[in-house]
């Protein structure tokens, strides 16, 4: 960068925060943060309910909330929960089984690192790799196609993530990839899942804080229909502490005023229309179908699958994927895992008896403890409920 001051991780200025040390918060404007937190407290008091429940749907939001100890700044009556915002976590076990089956059949499987340890019915991709399968980690869809160029073996990109990673996958598929490159899509589309979670009787969400970067692609206008269907206000929020606090204040005001609307509290990244070229590519390549989100529910139109025009790169069309041999011989602990309840906002990680005991980042039982965006892993990283 041209500015000599620009060194990430350089000396911090005004350090404050609930825990000090590594997790201390560098607010660029602590007074603003305090003012926003006080405003949130006033609004929660005005709402006059035993509890106000706000759900965010992004692992990066939870990371930021945890890292900066934001819950400790907010009133106890405000329940700030993470919903189905971790794409790795909502990838269903049969989808992992498909990737494992292809790996076991001798194909090269390439995927994002977070997917390696996500449990399938009985095996993870990491288990398959330990048993000799060719499983490689990539950081981008482009890298996946490059690996195919360098080998004669069939290379299957196990593609996961929400809109922000589905658009790059679509770009690679449109870019005439090598003939030995295939896509096994486990991409997911968030808005329908928000609708399902909002309708769950035991979830009881008063407002959603939508993910800023997914909205960078889709635009905030997308949420207008969702707001009407769920009768729940939505605010798009960024990731900086002040962004999150500002988003919460906007949302709390709407909850107090019973104003069911969409707000954009992240205008420096998100527009009403979003990134239209990326959307065009996304929907040219993908269409939606109904499917299971791990542990949460069967969700209509929230799985992204390849359109017929792109069947020539669809691993599901090319290969007869036999997952029957992976029938449940897995850990009985899986039955006790409450990841689904956590992602639906019904439970907290600390409600799980295995949290930090049988289930740790080093030896995860459920997907929420695997990914850096999983609620359990984030809470574990920050020593339990990240609000002290």
């Amino acid at each position, binding site marked *: *960068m*041209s500015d000599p001051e620009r*060194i990430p*991780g350089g000396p911090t200025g005004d350090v404050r925060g609930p825990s000090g040390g590594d997790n201390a918060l560098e607010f660029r404007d602590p007074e603003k943060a305090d003012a926003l937190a006080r405003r949130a407290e006033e609004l929660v008091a005005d709402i006059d309910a035993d509890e106000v429940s706000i759900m965010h749907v992004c692992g990066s939001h939870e990371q930021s909330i945890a890292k900066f100890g934001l819950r400790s700044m907010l009133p106890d009556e405000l329940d700030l929960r993470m919903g189905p915002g971790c794409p790795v976590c909502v990838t269903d076990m049969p989808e992992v089984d498909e990737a494992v089956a292809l790996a076991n059949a001798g194909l090269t499987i390439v995927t994002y690192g977070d997917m390696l340890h996500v449990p399938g019915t009985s095996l993870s991709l990491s288990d398959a790799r330990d048993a000799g399968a060719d499983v490689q980690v990539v950081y981008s869809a482009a*890298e996946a196609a490059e690996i195919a160029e360098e080998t004669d073996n069939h290379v299957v990109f196990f593609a996961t993530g929400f809109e922000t*990673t589905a658009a790059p996958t679509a770009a690679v598929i449109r870019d005439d990839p090598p003939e030995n490159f295939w896509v096994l899509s486990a991409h997911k589309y968030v808005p329908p899942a928000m609708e399902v979670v909002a309708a769950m009787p035991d979830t009881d969400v008063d407002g959603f804080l939508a993910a800023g970067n997914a909205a960078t692609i889709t635009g905030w206008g997308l949420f207008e229909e969702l707001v009407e269907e769920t009768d729940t206000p939505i605010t798009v929020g960024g990731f900086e502490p002040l962004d999150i606090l500002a988003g919460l204040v906007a949302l709390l005001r709407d909850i107090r005023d019973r104003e069911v609307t969409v707000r954009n509290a992240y205008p420096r990244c998100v527009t009403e229309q979003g*990134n239209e070229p990326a959307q065009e590519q996304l929907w040219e390549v993908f269409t939606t179908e109904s499917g299971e989100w791990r542990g949460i529910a069967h969700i209509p139109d929230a799985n992204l699958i390849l359109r017929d025009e792109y069947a020539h790169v669809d691993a599901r069309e090319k290969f007869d994927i036999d997952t029957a041999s992976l029938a449940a011989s897995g850990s009985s602990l899986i039955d006790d895992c409450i990841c689904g309840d956590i992602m639906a906002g019904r439970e907290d990680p600390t409600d799980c008896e295995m949290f930090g005991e049988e289930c740790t980042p080093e030896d995860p039982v459920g997907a929420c403890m695997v990914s850096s965006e999983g609620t359990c892993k984030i809470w574990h990283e920050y020593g339990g409920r990240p609000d002290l």
Partner: protein
Amino acid sequence: MCLGVPGQVTQVNGLTADVDFWGVEKEVRLDTVDKPVEPGDYILNHVGFAIRRIPESEIDETMTLYESMMGGGPDDMLREDLIDEVEAAGSTPAASSTTPADGDAEPADAEDAEDLLEELDIDV
């Protein structure tokens, strides 16, 4: 997987661009960027693809924000994710000279940033 990381475009080569992330040069795909980019522009890189051209009025604020996010300790997950985003961009051959659009020679902090990225186990 959700966050993205900003960098400055030093060269555009058709559908890819060489992008400078705090002194580390990487190649980023331009298929998914919302507006045309040219050298000197800043983009938000997500899994190796530019998903947004950052408007000039927001560059300083954006860079400061990301630098504060990357200021955590070695186990900081938010920082880890951002580092992964830099990693997601492809390496480019060392250019004979990288000339930022504002006419400066090598970025003044390139060496410091490279040392730092090496410390963070980033393959540069």
